[in-house]
């Protein structure tokens, strides 16, 4: 364990890998440029809605890094990491909803003749939050929703615990390969079905909404809040990148790659393969949860549809298209595909007039995207970064 800490000491690592600085430099440059161009504090060229999109994209890049660590470097094709992402969002969302509603309730209480008792405040908050979905009582799982730091702890604890329990069972019984993929998919399906129930305690299909309104910041316009979240996402992405990079370039990283390439051989060398897999599985779950906790306040609403199995498969696809086994590949893939998807499905792209009829991007984009996976897996297994590699290698020659 001390070894591990030594290896992740950031400064040491930075000195050894100056290439990280280039990434961080570009990320900061990008962040500063966008902030300067923004509607909120800059010259009003980039509207708030797009700032939010960019902020969310940075979070998706983060979860893509997590996916790359677990799949690209350790060979575990998890089709459930979006579940951790969404769980992180739910945990922070609980605090956001509760605290905001409580402020509203307390404001309303100022007109009441008698001061509200704690129970009455909780009842009123419960009616507000759960009245919408036909309930009134605050479920047990909301016990700590009022305490910011506890919920922040839950952001890591709950997804981490789920990942630990699931991983412990799965790796212990040597479930691997496609079986593990199917199991992780089943896990996220089970979780989403559970959350879809109205009685799940997390407002069922409605999910948690109004998350963009940060308690206590009622007077701050979204234009400003979105900038904060954008910067926070960028900073966190930078940190996650450093952590991921240092893991990949440590002895731990070598072992992980070894497990990916030949699990049995690593095991015969005397390593406890299961522990390593479990460690990376839990760590990436926590990274995904952190990304989710930053993502959903920008999205404004979280509901169980977010953790449908297909979302996690998309995550794998981003990493595959970007190029797995390379951290920047994951980032490129996530940013490129998710932005392109929202561009084409958002009706921004003009329809293509072909000879026989018009090609409507909103209708045909998914078909193209689907077929492009096939092409990428067949002909460019290293994804887009593979193409980059080719250029770089050519350039070096």
């Amino acid at each position, binding site marked *: 364990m001390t070894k591990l800490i030594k290896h992740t000491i950031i400064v040491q690592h930075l000195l050894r890998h100056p290439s990280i600085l280039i990434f961080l430099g570009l990320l900061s440059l990008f962040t500063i440029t966008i902030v300067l161009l923004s509607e909120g504090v800059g010259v009003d060229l980039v509207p708030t*809605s797009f700032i939010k999109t960019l902020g969310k994209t940075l979070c998706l890049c983060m979860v893509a890094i997590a996916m790359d660590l677990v799949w690209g470097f350790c060979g575990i094709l998890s089709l459930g990491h979006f579940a951790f992402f969404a769980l992180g969002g739910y945990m922070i969302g609980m605090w956001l909803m509760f605290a905001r509603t409580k402020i509203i309730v307390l404001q309303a209480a100022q007109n009441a003749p008698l001061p509200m008792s704690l129970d009455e405040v909780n009842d009123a908050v419960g009616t507000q939050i759960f009245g919408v979905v036909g309930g009134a009582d605050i479920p047990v799982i909301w016990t700590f929703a009022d305490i910011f730091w506890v919920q922040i702890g839950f952001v890591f604890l709950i997804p981490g615990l789920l990942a630990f329990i699931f991983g412990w069972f799965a790796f212990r019984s040597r479930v691997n390969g496609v079986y593990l993929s199917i199991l992780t998919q089943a896990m996220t399906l089970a979780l989403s079905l559970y959350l879809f129930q109205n009685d799940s305690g997390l407002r069922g299909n409605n999910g948690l909404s109004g998350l963009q309104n940060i308690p206590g910041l009622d007077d701050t316009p979204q234009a400003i809040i979105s900038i904060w979240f954008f910067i926070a996402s960028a900073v966190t992405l930078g940190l996650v990148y450093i952590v991921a990079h240092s893991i990949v370039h440590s002895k731990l990283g070598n072992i992980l790659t070894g497990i990916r390439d030949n699990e049995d051989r690593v095991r015969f060398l005397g390593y406890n393969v299961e522990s390593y897999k479990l460690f990376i599985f839990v760590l990436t779950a926590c990274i995904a949860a952190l990304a989710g906790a930053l993502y959903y306040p920008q999205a404004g609403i979280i509901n169980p549809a977010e953790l449908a199995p297909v979302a996690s498969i998309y995550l794998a696809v981003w990493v595959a298209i970007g190029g797995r086994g390379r951290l920047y590949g994951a980032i490129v893939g996530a940013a490129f595909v998710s932005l392109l998807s929202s561009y084409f499905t958002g009706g921004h792209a003009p329809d293509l007039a072909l000879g026989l009829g018009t090609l409507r991007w909103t209708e045909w984009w998914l078909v193209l995207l689907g077929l492009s996976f096939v092409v990428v897996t067949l002909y460019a297994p290293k994804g887009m970064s593979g193409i*980059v590699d080719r250029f770089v290698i050519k350039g070096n020659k």
Partner: protein
Amino acid sequence: MLYPVSVHRIFAIMVVFIGTYCSPDVRATASETIKIGVLHSLSGTMAISETTLKDTILMLVDELNDEGGLLGKNVEAVVVDPASDWPLFAEKARELLTVHNVDVIFGNWTSVSRKSVLPVIEELNGLLFYPVQYEGEESSRNVFYTGAAPNQQAIPATNYYLDELGVEKFALLGTDYVYPRTTNKILEQYLKDKGIPGSDIFVNYTPFGHSDWSKIVADVVALGAQGKKVGVISTINGDANVGFYKELAAAGVSADDIPVIAFSVGEEELSGLDTTNLVGHLAAWNYFQSADTDANTTFIAAWKNRMGGNRVTNDPMEAHYIGFNMWVQAVTDAGTTDVDEVRDAMYGQTFPNLTGGTAQMLSNHHLSKPVLIGEIQDDGQFDIISQTEEVPGDAWTNYLPESSVLISDWKTLGCGMYNTETKSCVQIKSIY
């Protein structure tokens, strides 16, 4: 040197995107035309229902422009696609209001999408016309609800069951989400108030797209063993209805034995079904295509002319028809499209319903509309067997203790959640 190339790429791509999102042609034309936003999913699961509404608004806009536009300007509809993705609704609403600078938005179908949009339009003081029947318990300063509130659909339908059909045992079947949950909660309380014991109310929720109905239908049939007339109130949504009605037909349940009244099944949904086995089952709406009035005949003709002869009309379309025309009248009265002035001008606006009578916009942002009950016919249409006078929509139901003390009155009280007991405004912003 790997990194510079890839990061440059990201950057280049982002610049391209920013360019498209804020291209100048979008921002410059605000003064020459009046822009209205259309926020309906054109892809994803809700596309089938919502695309129809987008087309309705486009048809109404075209008709308006043919007649000379509004305030001497042309009206331009800005259509965006939130793709049945709830967070995207909020994003697109923000885009409509801040990038496209629309004066009003017509949109949303599901409650969850409305709840997603609410914070945005309240923050930016937008105006939304929401055309679908919903669960109530909400009143936003920035939303006009042109669909039915529970007292305009669920309660009259239940009364019909109690009074006309003599139903004594109720099966409330619904899809597990907010609209059925809240509606059933209201109905349960209402039925109990009417003297139906809790043991005679059977509630069941199924997931979206549920297909295995045999046990639930068998359970409902078994309710008849108590010797009481059984009736089903269905808030089952979308595709799941297909399996449900198929299983009903297979079990030989006729409308004479166990009637089913549905709140989410209209002409559009029936077009996915063979209705011969469903004849006699019911639906409650504020509009049916079979309504026999001149205005409706004209409307249907215009719709079929534009979209094709086999297309049907439905209730949310009428809601948009009324909402759009009322907004046009309000803008004309106010002489501006400014949201606050239009809102004030909206109160008391009247417009003839397609089913006869007149709809009026109330100060709680709901309409007064007649309630119709129709029986399914073998041609996929409804035979209207009951039509009430106009019923004023109620934002807060009177049948739940916690909301019976609340009223919404934006015109005089300036409050959407006013507690009549403590005589104070509970809150200005709505619950989401």
